[in-house]
């Protein structure tokens, strides 16, 4: 067994050696339990924000803590503390085990395995070690660049964030896993004005990489250009039509459709409880032939990727829908155990202060064979939506929405006037059955997605090739 960095970090900094960890795990295990684990976290984050041409403030945060979890059947006991020492660890362990009434036949704590063996996001220097002058230089360069592009640029807000998170998981089944997770992000918001109207455009990028990647103009210039282009173009946007119509979704970020319509409904917790519109439907057709959707946490450097999930399970590529047939769920350990399935490396949590749940990583549809240009040409009348804001889903009824922030009219196979933003609404279990064309141009988003569930936010990715969907309800204002 090799000495690992996160493990050594927690031992050296907080005096949490293997013996004290096993002691706490032993306390948690004094009653009869199915699973117990300890989750340690130490995270730092730096960010700067520019507005009105200047960086008015910078900030830096340190977060640390431990969460102790005990599970018996469907029950979970959880306690966490931001004090990383042996006493608080023991107290948390005693609190968490209170859900189990029975005495144990004997503990089985034993830390012997180091999981991992790969690094999907190696960095020479943690992003939080980036000199603040470099972060300020980046947003100032973005500001100057955007303002020089077009006189209609009225205001620019640019921000960047660098994060570095170390985690360590020790579980009653022998799991001992660690991960060191860099995360960087750049956001650009442009307000354009032509005197009469004012419009906004957003774009951003990021991922699990060093900060130097963001400093490269080849990375940030296209983002800045996009934010400005969307804002300026929206100055001429027309009201969006209302009603059911053919919608062509562009590649990349419109993959948020899959996240809302399919992904959440396939999370193991909802399916174990039978509260999802997809419950009990494995093996059934839920999408048109040719539609294959996967969740893949192993893509190098992606925002949604993880070496191991927050329960220490290595991430993997999970096929959710294969050629239109529902094949799999996204699982954490508890729901996998209760459903008699294997964990899929999707047990994630916002921080030590939160319980793990099944969550997506990077969710996307595989490419088809259609030429994207042909797909657009095939539509007589409809909408072409290429950029989206957020979305939401009602897991139980299956109804989902996602809101377009850049869209165009399609008339006689040609892209027409830009349209004002509108929300699209559909039914998750059948929207993909109406996918009639799948492009060859699969793209992943630029690394800005954040998913919220039960009050917890985690970074995710999405992806999509150009697709044509029949009969999606578009929530515009024009009848």
């Amino acid at each position, binding site marked *: 067994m090799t000495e690992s960095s996160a493990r050594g970090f927690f031992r050296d900094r907080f005096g949490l050696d293997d013996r004290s960890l096993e002691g706490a795990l032993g306390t948690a295990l004094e009653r009869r339990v199915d699973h117990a684990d300890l989750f340690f976290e130490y995270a730092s984050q730096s960010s700067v924000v520019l507005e009105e041409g200047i960086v008015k403030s910078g900030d830096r945060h340190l977060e640390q803590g431990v969460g102790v979890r005990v599970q018996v059947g469907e029950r979970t006991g959880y306690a966490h503390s931001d004090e990383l020492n042996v006493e608080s660890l023991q107290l948390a362990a005693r609190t968490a085990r209170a859900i189990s009434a029975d005495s144990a036949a004997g503990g089985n704590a034993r830390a012997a395995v180091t999981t991992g063996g790969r690094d999907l996001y190696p960095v020479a220097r943690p992003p939080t070690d980036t000199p603040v002058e470099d972060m300020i230089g980046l947003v100032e360069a973005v500001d100057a660049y955007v303002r020089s592009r077009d006189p209609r640029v009225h205001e620019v807000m640019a921000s960047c964030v660098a994060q570095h998170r170390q985690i360590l998981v020790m579980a009653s089944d022998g799991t001992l896993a660690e991960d060191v997770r860099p995360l960087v992000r750049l956001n650009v918001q442009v307000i354009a004005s032509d005197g009469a109207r004012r419009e906004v455009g957003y774009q951003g990028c990021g991922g699990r990489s060093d900060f130097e990647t963001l400093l490269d103009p080849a990375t940030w210039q296209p983002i800045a250009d996009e934010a400005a282009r969307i804002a300026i173009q929206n100055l001429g946007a027309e009201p969006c039509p209302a009603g059911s119509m053919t919608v062509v979704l562009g590649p990349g970020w419109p993959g948020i459709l899959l996240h809302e319509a399919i992904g959440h409904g396939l999370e193991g917790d909802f399916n174990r409880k039978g509260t999802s519109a997809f419950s009990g439907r494995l093996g059934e057709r839920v999408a048109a032939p040719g539609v294959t959707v996967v969740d893949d946490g192993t893509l190098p450097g992606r925002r949604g990727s993880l070496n191991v999930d927050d329960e220490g399970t290595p991430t993997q590529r999970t096929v959710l829908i294969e050629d239109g047939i529902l094949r799999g769920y996204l699982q954490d350990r508890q729901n996998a155990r209760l459903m008699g399935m294997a964990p899929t490396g999707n047990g994630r949590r916002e921080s030590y202060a939160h319980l793990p749940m099944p969550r997506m990583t990077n969710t996307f549809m595989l490419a088809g064979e259609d030429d994207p240009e042909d797909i657009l040409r095939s539509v007589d009348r409809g909408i072409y939506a290429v950029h989206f804001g957020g979305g939401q889903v009602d897991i139980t009824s299956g*109804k989902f929405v996602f809101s377009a922030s850049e869209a165009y009219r399609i008339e006689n196979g040609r892209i027409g006037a830009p349209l004002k933003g509108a929300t699209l609404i559909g039914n998750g279990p059948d929207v993909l059955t109406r996918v009639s064309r799948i492009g060859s141009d699969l793209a992943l988003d630029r690394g800005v997605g954040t998913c919220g569930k039960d009050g917890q936010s985690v970074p995710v990715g999405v992806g999509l090739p150009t697709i044509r969907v029949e009969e999606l309800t578009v929530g515009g204002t024009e009848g």
Partner: protein
Amino acid sequence: MSQRERRRGRNQGMSELFDAAAIALEAAREAGADAADAVGVASDSIETRVRGEEIDFVKQARQRTLGVRALVRGPEGVRQAIASTADFAEAAVRAVAAEAATLARATAQDPAAGLPEAGFADPDALPDLALLDPADRGTGVEDRVEAARRAERAARAVDPRITNSEGSQASSGFSRVVYANSAGFAAGYESASHALFSEPLASGEGGMQRDYWMSVGRRLAELEAPERIGARAAERALRRLGAKPVPTCEVPVIFDPLTAASLWRQVAGLVNGYSVYRGTSFLAGKLGETVASQAVHLVDDPLRPGGLGSRPFDGEGLPSRRTVLIEKGRLESYLLDTYSARKLGLASNAHATRSAGSAPGAGATNLFLEPGQGSLEDLIADTPRGLLVTELIGMGFNPVTGDYSRGAAGIWIENGALTHPVEEVTIAANFADMLQGIDAVADDLLWLSSVASPSLRVARMTVAGEA
């Protein structure tokens, strides 16, 4: 009276925050800051969920954070930066303060930045806002599990079509906040928040539907009985069974108190001083103009006893006060902290929000629409054809242009009566027109969060559904 004397009589949890804040201010000055402020927050919470007859989870937590803002004066303005930590050891607090001072030297000089000049609250005469009942400190996991269990049983007992649930959840949290600055202000307060929430599922024609009901308060005794919460949640889920889209049309839309509150949350963003000076709100520059119908009186009141957003002083130490935002449709005030007020040439109205890890911002406290007359039933009876909206999903709102388009579920109204449940539709309009189009406000003001509203009707919106 010195700060130290003032702290006498505080419990240990409060003095830990006062001490850490004092060390942080001193360390920031030693590290070269010309001024500084510090925010300490500590909380203890219990949260549990019961699903069916089983406990789903029990969670207990204790968290603390200290944030320090260092301000460094230059010839053209003030530079600032923030640093925060969960480590309250003296060395860690000193390190974080020094880090804020170092970071501040790298940022730009801003003539509008800095502490308020004067007018701080009197720490010895803070109003008692009834934010905590000491007797509730005795509540424990068993009590909360029992409350959740009673709500869950009540929900499942309403009707055989209530077949499942996402569970019933009970929580109790106690927090302490301290704010101190280098101008000599230091004060703190304690508060509590208790909630009970139930989310059952109904099965029937057309599949499954979920809905929820909840009760939230500063004191446990204020909460609705668990049985009522469970039963009401179940009734709400049952009434959604058989929901379907309606044909695309333009009709009056009635918002119930919960969905109507979401409109005022959006207004809070639109009148936020930061959105105003940045020009990211279509209400920017509209002070004194008519921006809504005569029926709209919108008030923010941080001094509401027991209010979920109540506080004796704001995030910069200024005494809280009631502010009328919109009176008879006329925009009277923005929500302002010191910085956004200076940017706009106005005075702060003590609406600074603050968390340990961020610079002051502006925001609402207890925001509500003054009730009108008549009930929701009267409003429905007065609507020949339209949609009653009971749930909104998605984030389809552009504050710069006012374009509004969200997913909706509710009940269709025909000839002044509720007919069938509706889902998979969107409602859309320009938000400026929606505010002007509010033609009726009912009397059923309901506080389930710090933003509250009675039911109201918007005269005309596009409902998009079937072709």
